[in-house]
């Protein structure tokens, strides 16, 4: 079991009022959460409800165009359309066993909110989702989906009105309601969340290792994933960490370009600090005030990165790069046109980095974690590309 610290990163920087809830969660995870009966129930849900294992798809046409061997781990095919459901199922099941009746969650792109609303419907739990008003507009269909699933969506109107502010508000709500379970959606926050979320997302990498061995009869040269908080990336990275021949690349949101200051590239534009309960890399000014971020994708538009990534970065085991809004949109169209797959804007950043670096990756076997599907993004895609008007 990992945590509270990953090297110098992580920890438990939470108000005293929340500490007993965090400790209760940690102990439930270590006892109930490790029991064979819990794991069986979780795996049954992953298989028969969520649709695991997700396929590993070889992309022959696009691979050929880019001069490399491209494989996609298809989290977009998971129920509700993104990897977020793995974690939501695991945590909600744990909360149910802890006797919790109410779930609080934050969401950026709305995928985690939808996943949480979904499992709450399934497991008969009350569900409240906090979402920034900017995100609620740009991911409108996900707001409607959450409401249809029976969740209450609380729109957050302060700060930058995006994911960071939704996390602030969810933490505040939990502080006033410590009997609820806070179902945090990415591998960030105070311990035990980063380790807990990674635990429930590891299934992605465990499947992928086996699938690529079976289908390609080899391991990949690179594993590439987009990094918002870092849950889909850590979910696939962990399985490949021990194999030093595999390059691990996390792709952050480059927004308008890191040089413009309008981005969410924490490793190239930030410094270490503490936000939302953990020590990690942040976008902040010299006084430690958190800076606004920018990304076309709501799910990557966040000023901190999960602490396990900060540790992998410090160790040099994983490298972190960025793709701009434009890179992501270009790759998104390429995947649509060549493979008939519409990726989420978040996942398109991983593809965008591959496309931009195709010359250096010539002939390589590249495994991209396609964390979600892009249906939720149609309005932004059309608007940005000037289509359909």
């Amino acid at each position, binding site marked *: 079991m990992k945590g*509270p610290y990953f090297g110098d990163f992580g*920890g*438990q*920087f*939470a*108000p*005293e*009022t*929340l*500490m*007993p*809830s965090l400790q209760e969660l940690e102990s439930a995870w270590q006892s109930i959460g490790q029991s064979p009966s819990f794991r069986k129930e979780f795996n049954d849900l992953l298989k028969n409800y969520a649709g695991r294992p997700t396929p590993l798809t070889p992309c022959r046409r696009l691979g050929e165009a880019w001069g490399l061997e491209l494989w996609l781990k298809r989290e977009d095919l998971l129920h509700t359309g993104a990897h977020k459901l793995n974690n939501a199922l695991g945590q909600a099941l744990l909360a149910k066993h802890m006797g919790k009746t109410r779930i609080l969650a934050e969401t950026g792109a709305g995928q985690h909110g939808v996943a949480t609303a979904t499992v709450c419907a399934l497991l008969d739990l009350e569900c409240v989702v906090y979402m920034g008003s900017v995100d609620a507009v740009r991911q409108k269909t996900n707001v409607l989906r959450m409401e249809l699933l029976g969740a209450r969506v609380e729109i957050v109107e*302060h*700060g930058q009105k995006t994911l*960071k502010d939704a996390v*602030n508000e969810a*933490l*505040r709500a939990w*502080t*006033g*309601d*410590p009997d609820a379970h806070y179902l945090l959606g990415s591998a960030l926050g105070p311990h035990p969340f980063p380790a807990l979320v990674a635990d429930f997302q590891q299934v992605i990498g465990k499947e992928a290792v086996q699938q690529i061995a079976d289908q390609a009869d080899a391991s990949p040269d690179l594993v590439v994933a987009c990094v918002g908080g870092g849950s889909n990336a850590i979910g696939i990275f962990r399985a490949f960490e021990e194999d030093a021949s595999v390059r691990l690349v996390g792709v952050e949101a480059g927004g308008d370009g890191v040089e413009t200051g309008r981005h969410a590239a924490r490793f190239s534009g930030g410094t*270490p*600090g*503490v*936000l*939302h*309960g953990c*020590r990690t890399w*942040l976008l*902040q000014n*010299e*006084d*430690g*005030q*958190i800076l606004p971020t920018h990304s076309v994708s709501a799910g990557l538009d966040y000023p901190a990165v999960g602490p396990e990534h900060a540790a992998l970065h410090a160790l040099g085991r994983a490298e972190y790069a960025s793709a701009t809004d434009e890179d992501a949109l270009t790759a998104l169209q390429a995947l649509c046109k060549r493979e008939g797959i519409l990726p989420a804007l978040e996942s398109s950043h991983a593809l965008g980095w591959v496309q931009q670096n195709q010359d250096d990756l010539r002939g390589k076997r590249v495994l991209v974690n396609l964390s979600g599907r892009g249906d939720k993004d149609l309005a932004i895609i059309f608007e940005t590309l000037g289509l359909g008007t």
Partner: protein
Amino acid sequence: MNHFNRLEHATQTLRETNQRGVAPYLTAGDGGLTTTLAVLHALEKAGATCVELGFPFSDPIADGPILQAAAQRSLEAGTTFADTLEMVATYRKEGGELPLAFMSYINPLLQHGGLSSTCQRIAYAGADALVVPDLPLEESEELEKVCWENRLAPILFAAPTSGDARIQKAGSRSHGFLYVVGRVGITGGSTAFDNTTQEFLQTARRLSNAPIAVGFGIRTADDIRSATKYADLAIVGTALVEKLHYSKDPAKTAFDFLKELQSGLNA
């Protein structure tokens, strides 16, 4: 008596004489740092036991809407760490003697070369204690050590959710006072001083080595009366910050409001 510093002297004196006090909370730089300076002097004149001075943070997760807005206004007005400390130093230079507990979320304290250097600057400017709302016992060891090195009193928290063991630990590691959160939740709103709350405060008083200050949701003289049944100090933040924001003469408002609150002490 040889006390650790000004704050500990003030709170131990309250204890020894079985008196109670009011500790106002201010967001530094809300309305400008010149206003904060004037308000500090006014609060001293009105007889505050000590002041909790909050350095604004962009993402204050333990604060409700009123204190969030105050921090945002202060940051938008350009308040910096350096200017805030300079204001504190000026207050001391002008003869200000109030014990000051400097409140900051942990992240700003980790910048400018790290804890050791920021705490040294805070102490050098003239603050007496440090309050960090997102630093629980599990993470506070280094800060406590640095506080000791700089004669800053480390102030830790106890909450209604804490349980006896944690309250006792926090109470023995705090100096000046133990910050007791009066209610489950963030700042703002109001706290009902019902039997459950009073029992909790009584427990905190019994378990804590340090005097106890109760905060969160204390707004009126009546609240002060109830809050200080067992607590040595009552911290009034949101209500004061709100009044100051709407005031044309913040120093006078601070003085008058503190006097009004103190009327709850003697009943």
